[in-house]
């Protein structure tokens, strides 16, 4: 029995290594994608055009506007002459935000009253708009503070921020751990979902079925190579992340790999389940995407799981990606306590057991 499983594992690994396409898709493209995505999702905003419509001619407004002008994020400033220009400017995307200063701005400030500045943002680019709002608030806040200092008065409450685990709020630090979890899943899914469907399509699967190989032997022989290949790809991603993205790893690598083996067992189980259902590789790919896209979306990769409705949270908990994102973040950003790891490893182990059993069952049924 072990010899047969060994034969299958050797065959799978050789076949992947000898096929240039598989080699590229499975081993090299994910680390490459990690780099590309990492840079693409960088949340820094630059090259923004600010439009200013200043109806006020006092010193206070000029000072405030000059603070915006020197801010690095605003690449270009255009000045509007009429209120009617505001809408076309945003519509035609000539500017991402428009700042409007009312005509009584300086006057009110001098009288010691509070004055208003209007910011108009382009909601079509909501992400950018939100970031720009943050920048603008900070500029206004600094302006306020300095003005109060000059008047020798103090603001009643002052906010002091400190972000733990990511002190400089580096966008890559939060993006890479989640991206890593998703890309590892993609590799595991691809290798496993294609494996049986491919053999079925090429006709080699029948050759296996008439051989002394038992269904569960075929399943082990298919899972182990997929797991090994995905682990190799994951290691490459980890090294690249450290070398080029400067994302530190603070937690234990051993725990990460242990978690990853369980994670991949679950991923490969689901992949093989889909593969057993499919008659052709094309069906397998479509089936895979029908599962993978929603699974990634509810996994907490893009939006926090806690914000989802209860029923969706339940589904998220049944998705291995959800758990591994937590583990990945835990290892990358901090040294998390052991209980946290294990509270996410056992659900993945459960998913792995269920999906592998289901795949074996399906596989027996689909054999004729």
């Amino acid at each position, binding site marked *: 029995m072990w010899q047969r499983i060994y034969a299958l594992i050797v065959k799978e690994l050789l*076949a992947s290594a000898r096929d240039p396409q598989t080699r590229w898709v499975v081993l090299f493209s994910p680390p490459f994608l990690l780099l590309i995505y990492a840079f693409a999702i960088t949340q820094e905003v630059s090259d923004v055009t600010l439009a200013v419509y200043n109806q006020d001619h006092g010193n206070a407004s000029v000072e405030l506007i000059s603070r915006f002008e020197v801010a690095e994020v605003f690449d270009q400033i255009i000045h509007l002459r009429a209120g009617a220009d505001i809408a076309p400017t945003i519509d035609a995307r000539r500017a991402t935000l428009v700042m409007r200063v009312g005509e009584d701005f300086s006057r009110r400030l001098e009288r010691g009253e509070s004055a208003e500045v209007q910011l108009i943002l382009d909601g079509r680019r909501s992400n950018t708009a939100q970031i720009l709002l943050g920048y603008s608030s900070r500029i206004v806040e600094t302006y306020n503070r300095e003005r109060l200092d000059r008047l020798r008065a103090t603001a009643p409450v002052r906010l002091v921020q400190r972000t733990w685990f990511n002190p400089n709020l580096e966008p890559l630090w939060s993006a890479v751990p989640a991206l890593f979890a998703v890309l590892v899943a993609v590799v595991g899914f691809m290798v496993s979902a294609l494996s049986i469907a491919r053999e079925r399509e090429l006709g080699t699967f029948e050759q296996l079925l008439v051989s002394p*190989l038992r269904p569960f032997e075929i399943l082990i022989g298919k899972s182990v190579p997929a797991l090994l290949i995905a682990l190799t790809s994951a290691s490459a991603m980890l090294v690249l992340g450290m070398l080029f993205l400067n994302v530190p790893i603070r937690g234990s690598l051993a725990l990460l790999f242990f978690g990853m083996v369980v994670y991949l067992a679950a991923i490969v189980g689901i992949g093989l389940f889909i593969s057993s259902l499919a008659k052709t590789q094309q069906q397998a790919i479509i089936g895979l995407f029908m599962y993978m896209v929603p699974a990634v979306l509810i996994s907490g990769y893009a939006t926090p799981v806690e914000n989802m409705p209860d029923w969706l949270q339940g589904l998220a908990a049944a998705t291995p990606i959800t758990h591994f994102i937590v583990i990945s973040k835990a290892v990358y950003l901090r040294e998390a306590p052991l209980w946290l790891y294990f509270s996410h490893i056992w659900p993945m182990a459960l998913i792995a057991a269920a999906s592998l059993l289901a795949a074996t069952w399906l596989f027996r049924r689909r054999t*004729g």
Partner: protein
Amino acid sequence: MTALVTIEGLTKRFPKQAEPALRSVSTQIRSGHIVGLVGPDGSGKTTFLRLIAGLLRPDEGGIDVGGFDPVANAKEVRARIAYMPQRFGLYEDLSVEENLNLYADLRGLVGSARKATFERLLDFTGLAPFTGRLAGALSGGMKQKLGLACALVVTPELLLLDEPSVGVDPISRRELWRMVSRLTDEGITVVWATAYLDEAEKCETVLVLSEGDLIFDGRPTDLAARVAGRVFLIEGIEGDRRYVLNRARQHEAVMDGTIQASHVRLLLNENARALSLASIGAGDEARLKPVAPRFEDAFIDLIGGGFRAESPFAGGSQRSHDIAIAVEARGLTRMFGSFTAASEISFDVRRGEVFGLIGPNGAGKSTTFKMLSGLLKPTSGEARIAGVDLRTAASEARARLGYMAQKFSLYGDLSTMQNLRFFARVYGLTGARQRTMIARMIESFALTDKLDENSGQLPLGFKQRLSLACAVMHEPDVLFLDEPTSGVDPRTRREFWAHINAMVTNGVTVIVTTHFLDEAEYCDRAALIYRGQMIALGTPAELKAQAASSTMPNPTFEDAFIALVEKNEAETSP
């Protein structure tokens, strides 16, 4: 008659191939003729047709189609020819009529001319009742007829057909042939590429290609004449005809030998004086009877004779089965939805017997085969191999059988050696035994030069050899062969049968499917499967005798098959 196509010193090379696909071929194709283009797979038939159609550019030499060069004057040449490739571009999700419309649109055939042409073509192909049917739901033969109709929407001067009869049952093959001969009456010139030598025999001219060389160009009767008086049948053989064939094949006076029902057919050497039947162990009663040569005899002679070496499987270890019945089929039925692919099929196969499942593609023989080998669950009935049902059988039971699938089903990305090793391990061969058996397979199937090549890149003949090697390496008791010789040239087919016969002599039971009806002659018994039914069962001689009539006293196996199908249809239709 004038030449429509003139070809001078035509050579075509493909990158990364050491040998040219065609080597300085010169010939003329006369107008109004059917020209048969024969040769094993990979001999250059398709390349030849594509060059004439202007789809490939010749490396050397020239082609002239009615005064035009196919590449330089592509437009003029295309207006004059119709080309039907091996896999004609039918849209399976479109109906017969929609497919015809599409090709008419592409060829700019409109208005009343289109209507008249469609009527003529539908009548001609007999597809008129099926215009609404999806092309994907047509049988192999009907698909080819539709392909032909689509190719003929504009009446060409030259029709190029690339293996139109592959995958078509014998009855449709004959119809297709009749249709094409009618075209020549209208003055259309036809080039018909085929692997079936009996079809070539009916052509006015044949071109025989072998490894890119044109080795014969002339009338088929002229080719057959070269073996006149050298073809014999050994009748009245005592004992095992396989044994006699094996001795005869290796005799110096013999060029080629095949089994023909209970007789052995021999092609003798040009300067053979006589053949002593005693020397090949045929028995006292055996007689040598001269018979009319066939095109295939001449073809084998032309390529230097059949497979004449001793099979390395001869004298292998004897299988000792404790049971006499190796395979039992009991009322095997398989439905796919409302379609009955196989219905109530029952037979027994004795140990050491070669049992054939014979029938056209799609008739149900592969379905039956898969139910026997445990790959497909019967809707009702049961199949037992050496007393066990393979669907529920232990792994040990499966280790005792060998299986060679119809389609190449080894791992194309692995080398020859890696495939051999994989199957050796899967079948439990270890250590020294593994090494010995792999070495024996490499030697038996002449794989030494191909060990490091990816098996997917091997020439077809080698792919089949490797497949057979992987199926028999572990010395199975029962061997399942699904179309083992499909697409293989006649010489390799003889080699395969030499190996199979040698294994049978060792007590191996063989279940084989084939649509080459002449191969059915090798079987001890055969079941004819047609439209999911087993319409006849018996020895080849019995089956032929059932079909013999006063008009056809000595039917070939194909004649017998057609007669039995027609008889069956007459009985079943009200």
